[in-house]
């Protein structure tokens, strides 16, 4: 029973983190058809900038409460600066190229971002644990959990809700859905597709950075964290169906619970539980659980 409760809470907590870390990737893919490896770079930039900002701020001796503002702010700053630079500076010259080539382009950008973080923040780890502790703990069936973890679950739900509302209930969102459906027709209808791409990329980059920024207080921010997140995020969105927000939620839950179950019941399988789930899902549903419709051209 204790184990079952622990699996439920851990699985949910891990799924929330996975969703926050991968939703930016699925958004960019859905709209722009770019499998953005630089997502890992945004994640790392977000983690570094928020850990760095929290550290600077707390040196002044002020209250920890305001750090919860710093986290999203640093993510937005990273998203706008890095996202704008990359989309306007590189990607816009590449639209319409082969999907695989775009993977390579974003991989090159990722390599550059890796060294950029190293040049800005050095190789020593950054720790900014205060926000993770400030909210305290709660006991569930005798096991203490940090409230911060539940705050992340809440944030993940809020993110999903805002994205859903933005896409389905606003004019801009509906126009975006049109762009996703058919790029050429929508630009013929007078929709400014370029602007949509720029904005989407910035939002996607911000979401990637946000994933890193909220994770930073729980970990030690070190070079290389970006590379770790990419494959994990890919697995999540592939399981759910690439480009679908709902798919990212389901994918995160699948992977999150697979990991929690293996850790509690059979730790030896932890290393490949994610890939087993991915292979199993793809074997049954080749295009993920919530694939976008794809017309076959004859």
């Amino acid at each position, binding site marked *: 029973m204790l184990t079952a409760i622990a699996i439920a809470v851990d699985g949910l907590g891990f799924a929330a983190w996975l969703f926050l870390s991968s939703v930016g990737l699925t958004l960019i893919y859905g709209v722009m058809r770019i*499998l953005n490896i630089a997502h890992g770079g945004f994640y790392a930039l977000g983690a570094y900038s928020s850990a760095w900002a929290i550290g600077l701020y707390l040196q002044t001796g002020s209250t920890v409460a305001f750090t919860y503002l710093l986290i999203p702010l640093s993510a937005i700053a990273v998203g706008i600066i890095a996202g704008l630079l990359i989309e306007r500076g*590189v990607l816009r*010259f*590449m639209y319409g*190229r082969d*999907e*695989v*080539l775009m*993977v*390579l*382009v974003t*991989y*090159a*950008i*990722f*390599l*550059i971002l*890796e*060294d*950029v973080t*190293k*040049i800005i923040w050095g190789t020593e780890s950054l720790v900014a644990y205060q926000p993770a502790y400030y909210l305290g703990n709660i006991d569930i069936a005798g096991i203490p959990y940090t409230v911060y973890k539940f705050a992340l679950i809440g944030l993940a739900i809020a993110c999903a809700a805002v994205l859903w509302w933005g896409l389905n209930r606003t004019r801009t969102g509906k126009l975006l859905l049109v762009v996703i459906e058919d790029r050429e027709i929508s630009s013929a209808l007078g929709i400014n597709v370029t602007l949509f791409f720029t904005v989407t990329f910035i939002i996607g980059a911000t979401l990637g950075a946000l994933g890193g920024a909220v994770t930073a207080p729980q970990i030690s921010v070190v070079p290389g964290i970006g*590379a770790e997140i990419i*494959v994990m995020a*890919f*697995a999540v969105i*592939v399981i759910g169906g*690439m480009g679908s927000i709902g798919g990212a939620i389901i994918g995160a839950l699948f992977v999150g619970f697979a990991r929690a179950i293996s850790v509690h019941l059979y730790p*030896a399988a932890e*290393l*490949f539980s994610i*890939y*087993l789930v*991915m*292979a199993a899902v*793809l*074997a049954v549903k*080749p*295009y*993920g659980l919530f694939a976008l419709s794809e017309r*076959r*051209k*004859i």
Partner: protein
Amino acid sequence: MTKNLDRTEKGLIISLPVLIALGFILPEWIVNYIQVSLGTGLVALGVMLQMRAGLVSFGQGLYFCIGGYAAGMAGKFLGVSDIFVLVALGLFASVTVAFFAGFLLRRYREIFFAMLSLALSMILFGLLSKLEVLGSTDGFNLPSATYLGWAPEGDTAKYALYVATCIPTIICTILLNRYLRGPMGYVGEAIRENELRVEYLGTSAHRAVHIKYIIAAAVSGIGGVLWALALGHVDPEMTNWTTSGQFVFVSILSGTGNIVAPLFGTFILEIVRVYAVEASPNTWQMILGTLMLLTIIFLPKGLWSLIQKKKAAISTQKMAGSES
């Protein structure tokens, strides 16, 4: 006989003695990079082969690793060190796995093919990382190669292994070129263009993809054996997605224009990396990334397009010359 050979094949046949001669002329360290590049180049060739059919394998490391481990385990547990047996074993192991995995993978295209092949290779990575008898993530070492009972030592062994790497690489390349020029090869391109039409024309796209997949696995397995023998060591990193990713990048960077492009591309990328590390050991990734970006922007068809452009220029010059 020679009538059937196209330019690339003639070039390849001539390049074999040249390549072997280079092994004696060039300093050893660079021969070393050539040797490892031939091994990994074969895998990139496998990736390129699938890419011709529009399939991007982000898990080709799987067969690279299976080849290497098959050879390594034969050496470790059975005491086999004969290169012919090792290559045969690596080939057999990768083809067998590919035959069964092919039934699953042949149904997938585009990014889903990429991700599923990645998942398969990562499952092997997880398994190998757990197996302490195989040295876990540290891997284990291979014996020196022998040749039908001949066991050279010292410098002779190095040259022998180099020559023994060159020959199968060139043979594989020629055979693949043949295959790509044959009907089955062109079906691949047709599949990339429009799979439904291929089916309407009465060919099974699934079957064609399956065969392609097995052939790619076969060359990757051989590449794995040769690479492992050159290095003398195998570890699960061979099947990690980063390794597979590198194969994809090499194939794209070098372009799918010609069968030898991936072999050259692998070597060039290797040398660029070496000099980037030498120039700036702390930020070489940035240099590599920038170069990749510039290549993609200015040479969208890969490095090979440089050579093709030159060829075109030369032939127009010649035409102009003969006219005057």
